[in-house]
Structure formats: C-alpha cells, structure tokens
C-alpha cells in the first residue's frame, strides 16, 4: 500500500507500484488537469510539482512519490489565483489550452526557485514544455508578468 498526499489530501494505492503518477492521477484519482502528451518526458504536458520541484508525472511512478506532497494544477491555488494563473489570463495566453496546465506548473516551480527570472531563464526553464499552437511569446511574457506582480 503506497500513501501519498495530492493537493493536501491523503491518497492510497495498492495496485501496480510502477503505475505512472500521470495515469494514477488521471484515471484512478480523477484529477484530469494533468495531461498526457507524450509519455516520455518530452513535452511537459504532465508537469506537476512534487514537494517544490517540477516533475513529469508520465515517467514518475506512484512508488517514486510515496510519502511526498504532489501538487497538480487543481491544487496550485484554491481559487485559481496564483500569480502565474492570473498573469496567464491577463495576457490571454492559451489557444487550445491543452498544454497550459503543464506550462503553468513549470512556471510556478520556476518562480519558487527564482522569483525574478530573466527572459533567457524563462525560456530555458520552459524549454521542456511544448505548445503546438505556438503560444510561446505570450507564455514568456506571462511568466515575466507573474514575476513582476500581476
């Protein structure tokens, strides 16, 4: 039996311990904000925060996060008003929106680590998150806005 905390709530799992955190979140817990985009840590759509670090849920097993704190997009802020989320809305970042939870989680993790990143640092930190619609210019500007006060 694996125990972990997701968005502050205790969860248990007694199935395959190698099941990825992604499918555990989506199919077993029902937290579908975390997206499947590649399954190989190539696109970042499944980014969640484990303790204070951004990780790709698709290559993280449930057993890897036993007894740790997992934060998903649903748990980033109780009313959805994390500075990154607010900046995203102010700049009208999304097109289709599918990758955006991963982008937002990655950006939130960046700002925890580096509250005032340069544009170059933003680009580097988010280079693992693909947006096929091509919202990059706005993503970069939104992270910058979030870091300077929304």
């Amino acid at each position, binding site marked *: 039996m694996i125990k972990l905390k997701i968005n502050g709530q205790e969860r248990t799992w007694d199935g395959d311990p190698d099941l990825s955190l992604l499918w555990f979140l989506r199919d077993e817990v029902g937290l579908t904000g975390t997206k499947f985009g590649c399954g190989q840590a190539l696109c970042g759509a499944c980014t969640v925060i484990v303790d204070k670090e951004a990780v790709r849920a698709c290559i993280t097993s449930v057993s890897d996060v036993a007894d740790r704190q997992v934060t998903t997009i649903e748990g980033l802020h109780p009313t959805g008003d994390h500075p990154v989320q607010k900046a995203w809305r102010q700049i009208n970042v999304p097109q289709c929106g*599918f990758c955006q939870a991963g982008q*937002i989680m990655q950006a939130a993790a960046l700002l925890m680590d580096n509250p005032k990143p340069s544009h170059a640092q933003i680009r580097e930190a988010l280079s693992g998150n693909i947006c096929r619609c091509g919202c990059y210019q706005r993503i970069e500007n939104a992270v910058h806005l979030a870091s300077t006060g929304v």
Partner: protein
Amino acid sequence: MNIITNPKKLRGFEKACRVENVSRRSVLKGLGIAGSFVLAAPILSRPAFAAYETGAGKMPHGTVVDPRVFVAIAPDGIVTIIAHRAEMGTGVRTSLPLIVAEEMDADWSRVRVQQAPGDEVRYGNQDTDGSRSTRHYLMPMRQIGASARTMLESAAAKRWGVPATEVKAANHEVVHDATGRKLGFGDLAADAAKEPVPSIEGLKLKDPKNFRYLGKGEVSIVDLHDITTGKAGYGADVRLPGMKYAVIARPPVTGGTLVSFDPADALKVSGVEKVTQVKGWPWPSKFQPLGGVAVIARNTGAAIKGRDALKIVWDDGANAKYDSVAYRAELEEAARKPGLVVRKEGDVDAALKTADKVIVGEYYLPHLAHVSMEPPVAVADVKGDKAEIWAPVQSPGGTREDVAKTLGIPEGNVTVHVTLLGGGFGRKSKCDYVLEAALLSKELAAPVKVQWTREDDVHHDFLHTVSVERIEAGLDKNGKVIAWRHRSVAPSIASTFAANTVHQAPFELGMGLIDMPFEIANIQCENPEAAAHTRIGWFRSVSNIPRAFAVQSMVGELAHATNRDQKEMLLELIGSPRIVNLSSVKDPWNYGEPYSSYPIDTARLRRVVELVAEKGEWGRSLPKGHGLGIAAHRSFVSYIATIVEVAIDDKGKLTVPRVDTAIDCGTYVNPERIQSQIEGAAIMGLSLAKYGEITFKDGKVQQKNFDDFPVLRIDESPSVTNVHIVPPGPDTPPSGVGEPGVPPFAPALVNAIFAATGKRIRALPIGKQLET
C-alpha cells in the same frame, strides 16, 4: 482517375442512412432552461440572406438561421448561446456566440455558451476546418442575433402597447425612450418566444459603428479560467462510471492486416482485463479504423503496459516497400517530365526557348505529422442500438454519420458530444479513433475510452502530403519574367478515399498552383502522377505549404538572378492591381467560395506586402549574420505577407529575432484571436521548416515521438512576432484566419537565410543544412 471536387462532400456520396429521427427533446434537455426561448418549433429552414454570397450553402446541410435553435433566455436574464463549431484553439467557441450577442445587444457578462452536439440538420454544417467558421457564419450569426432582438423588441412593444418602432434593445434590456420604461431580456423571454421569427430580408442589422464587441478584441475566450485551473474538459478528460480504458496495437504498415496474436503475457499485466481484436477496413480505408488488437484495462497505464507485452504477427500488405528516399527520387523524376496540364496561358514552351535566362527551382517538402498536444482519444458508450460519444472532433456531424454507419444503427440514435480539442490542425477531422471506441464499447457492452499514445499518433496519422514542386521561370534580356512553368507532384488526399488515385484533386490544385496570381504572359501548371502509400490528410493550410514555399522561394531566386530587391521583385511579379482571370482553368476551385465575393484581388495582395514592408521595416540595417526575407500568399481567401529576420552564427545555428506578418482577412470579429493565430502560425511555420519530416522505410514510419519528430520549443521561438491587420473595407466579406498564416512563413525564412548566408534551401526541413 478519381477526382473529388470537394472532399467534405464525400459524406454525401456515401450517405447510407440519413437523419430519420432528430430528437428535439435532447436539445431541450441539453439547454435545461425553464421558460426559455427555445421552443419545440419546426426548424426554420431558410437561406442566410447576405450582402455577399459565400459557399456556406453548399456545405453539407448548409446554414440554419433560427434564433430558436441558437438562443435561449432564462427568466433570470441569462442568455445561452449555442456554439455549434468545434473549439481547437482558434477561439471560435467565443467568437460566433459573441456575434449573436452583439446583434442582440446582450451583455456578454450575462451570456453563457453551450456546445452543440453533432446535429447538422438542426445547426447547419459543423465541419470546423478550412478556416471557414467566421467566413461562413458571420452573417448568419448576425441574423440570428438580430432576429432574437427583434422578437424581444416586439414583445416589449406589445406589453407597453406602443409601436415596435418606438422601442429598442440596449444592454440586455428593451427600452421605451419616450416614457423611460425598461424591461430586461429575462422578463421578456416567455413573450418573445411567442413572437414570429422575423423574415431575414426585413431584419435591421446593427450599424458597425455601434458595435460594442465585434472588431474590438477585448473579450477573452470563454474557457480561459477553466484552462488555467485545469478544469477545461478535453476529450481525454471524459470519465464515465464503469468506463474501461483501451489502447490498440495497429498494423505498422498502412493497409496491413492482422495475422495472429498471443494475448497471454498481456493478460498477466496487473490491471489488464481483456485483449480483443478490432475490426479493420481494407485500404484505402477513408476514416474507418485500421484494425488491430485492443488491450482493455482499469487504467490507461495498465493498458499500455499490456500492449507492450502482446505478441502479434502482421501481414504488411501492398505498402510494405514504401521508402521515403526512393519515393523522393520517383517524385523528382516525375517533376522533370510533362504532366497533366491544369492551367495554360500563352505558350510556355516557346517562351522558355526564347528566354534570355531560365531559372529552375526544384523544391522538396516531406510528410508532416499533426502532433496536436492531445493525441487522438474518444469515449463511447454503446447500449443496444444507441450510441453516445464524447470526443474532440472537428467534424461532429460527419462523426455522427460514420458512427451510425459503422455500428449499423440509425443516425438519430447517435449523440456526439463535442469536447474541447487539445489541438486539431486537420487531424481531428478524421474520426477513426471515435469509430474504434464505438466498436469496442459495443463489444464490451461498457463505456470505453480509446487513448492513442504519441507513438500511435506519429505512426498512424493521416499525414500531410510529400511533394516535389518544380518551377522553371524564363527571363527576357531586361530581367522581366516572361514564362512560368510549375509542376506539382504529390500524393493526393483523395487517395485516402479512392483506390488508384494518381492526380491531385481540384481542391489541392486550387491551393497555390492554379491560382498563382503573378502577371506573366506565359503560364503553365502541370500535375504529373503520384500514387500514395500511406494515409494522406488535411494538415493546417494543406497544399498551400509546398506551393507557397516553391513560388515564394522562386521569387527570391529571381530577385537574386536579376540583382533586385526581394520585395520589389515580388511586387513586380504580382503586377498591376487587378482581378486575376482564371478562365483558362477547368475547375478553378476557390476554397468553396464564389469568385464573385472572393476574387483573387492583386490590389489586396500588394497591400499586405506594402503594409508588412512598412511596419516590418523592410530594408532596415542589420548586424552581420542577419538577413531579411519576405513572402506573400493568398490562401483560404485571405491575403498574408510575412517578413522574417534570421540570425545565423558562424556554426550555422539559426535563430529568429523578429517576425512581422500582415493579414487582410476582410471583416473580422476578434483581432486579439487573429493575432494569436498568426503568432502560432509563425511557430508552426518555423517548426516545419527547421525540423518537420516524417520518413518511411519498409512501409513503416521511422519516427515515434517528440524526440525524433521535434517541434519548436520556447527557447527557439521568435523573440517577437508582430501582427498587422488590414482594416476591412465597409463591405469586405470575412475570410480565413486559422490556416493562412502558415504558408508564407517557410519561404520568408529561407529567403532570409539566403540574404544572410547566400545559401539557398530548396528542401525542407533545414535540419543540418546550415551547419558548417
């Protein structure tokens, strides 16, 4: 030879079962608003009267202009407006309802948008593709809004016993200026519903100068908050009680078939419940499933693990020798010989013979995969002769028809709920993944989600075609272009529907080949034969990608050959402001639009070139290693010009400091979303130019995921993309926005690379061609 004039009409060809029983109850239930504006009235089938004619009426099921279908008003004043087109990132789910709200004089903060299920008899055509939504629905949506407003005004006038001419709607209420009386939309809803629907011809549309929302770009997309909080519902996010999770192993070669499989090891995987065969259709299989072996599990992770443990023997079939290197040579050989003539003006052979100089450019563009961030996915719940579908589909109506046909049940028994699409780009116009889910749900008698992995998506896409475009341009001794021969060789999308297709369809030839707008005395366009060996499909902007690449690269080549400025060369070739005469073309396809409303107007093409040159500071001085390139292209009846600035370091590393794009898309609804589409088009254009290539060996796709089919990432994206929108004339019909931004990007890029380095890129992707 098989030629499909309009691929979307294919559904018409095969119509086995037509709508027999459209359930109006389900719609009322869906709206769920008591005392609402929606009545169980017969659908008003009337043509959309318009100041300009569009091709909307020729689409399957045309348009429906009926406020009772699209608008509901609750007693509390909340107005619900139906979005009947699919949302894949263009903002259409916001834009079309916003048009209705504008004409109704509704307050947008009191409007809710509800997604329509697939039902084209009720809503009109729902194929969200071809950059058509605003083009076809701006006027019908205005008429729907104006009809609803008129009915509200009539109800208020009756209530007050005053002539209808004395009252007017304003900001969600109807007012009687003379007495200062006011009634909210909610107070009037029940009475308004009893008013007759006014005739379209008599409707008074709002004066655009009084628009509150249209053309302003101040309204955010309706899903913005949900997207940023993880609540937005995509196809992948649908969960039903008792739902099973399935992944499918499909034949690795298109047209291959299953010989045998051993499920034993798969069934040992924790969480796997069943392994079963999925029916496949013979090649060419249209949108029908490829067939294969499905693994059913309690979650997707277990299903994928189970599939990895399957042992399967396939028969690779007729396409087992498809090889991209050999195929390219085949296309090039075909392009060097005469082919089917599809446009002929003057005498190209004679002019090329007498030309002072002939410049030849042969351009190669490989297959591309769509790789929308949400891979194909669908949920089906089939119970007896009824089916309920939840899926990200661009074609809700077509999906409904295909599900009914595949299951052998009446179309009226199929409900297709359209979720948000995590990207589409044309891939989700083909509903094979939905049909797989429907077949499995029927077999298992349970709700089933079929999830494609990224590898499935890359291996079994309906790929963008692969093409060789060869242009010969003859110059006289003054450097004027007197002859232009363009041969286009590419397997056609029509090959996915009809065996032995070797020529491109009119809708493909009409994307930048036969509609080439240059003012040249001798023009010949040819289409030599090419057979397909995989599924070919629509990819954002379709054949315009290779055509614009070839034509606009050739402009750059001609500028160099004659020592001219690229922009000046481009304007000289476009020539005088005029309407291009295509009378020499047998089937001059125009994106399904009449040329009367949407001619090829070179004045508009010139204008976007001049606008982008001005705003994009064409000719500005640049640091060493930088270069500017320009390209212009008309597609989806819009006019676009792009300037790209590149920087190339001494190792050949390419970066893009700045992009400027000018777009003339006629009358528009939401400039902020036009901007986002054009920004995205620059990313997709740079992505395909730098990296995009799907190759085949032994009939199989050689790439699998974003590691070997890379797409552009943020650290390589242009530093700035500026978008310049041409203000529309008062009566300019709306034209496409979603797709037209892509085609000019790659040629502007390679023209810029040439300016920076003197190296001419004629084959995409650029890959390592610039490395030193």
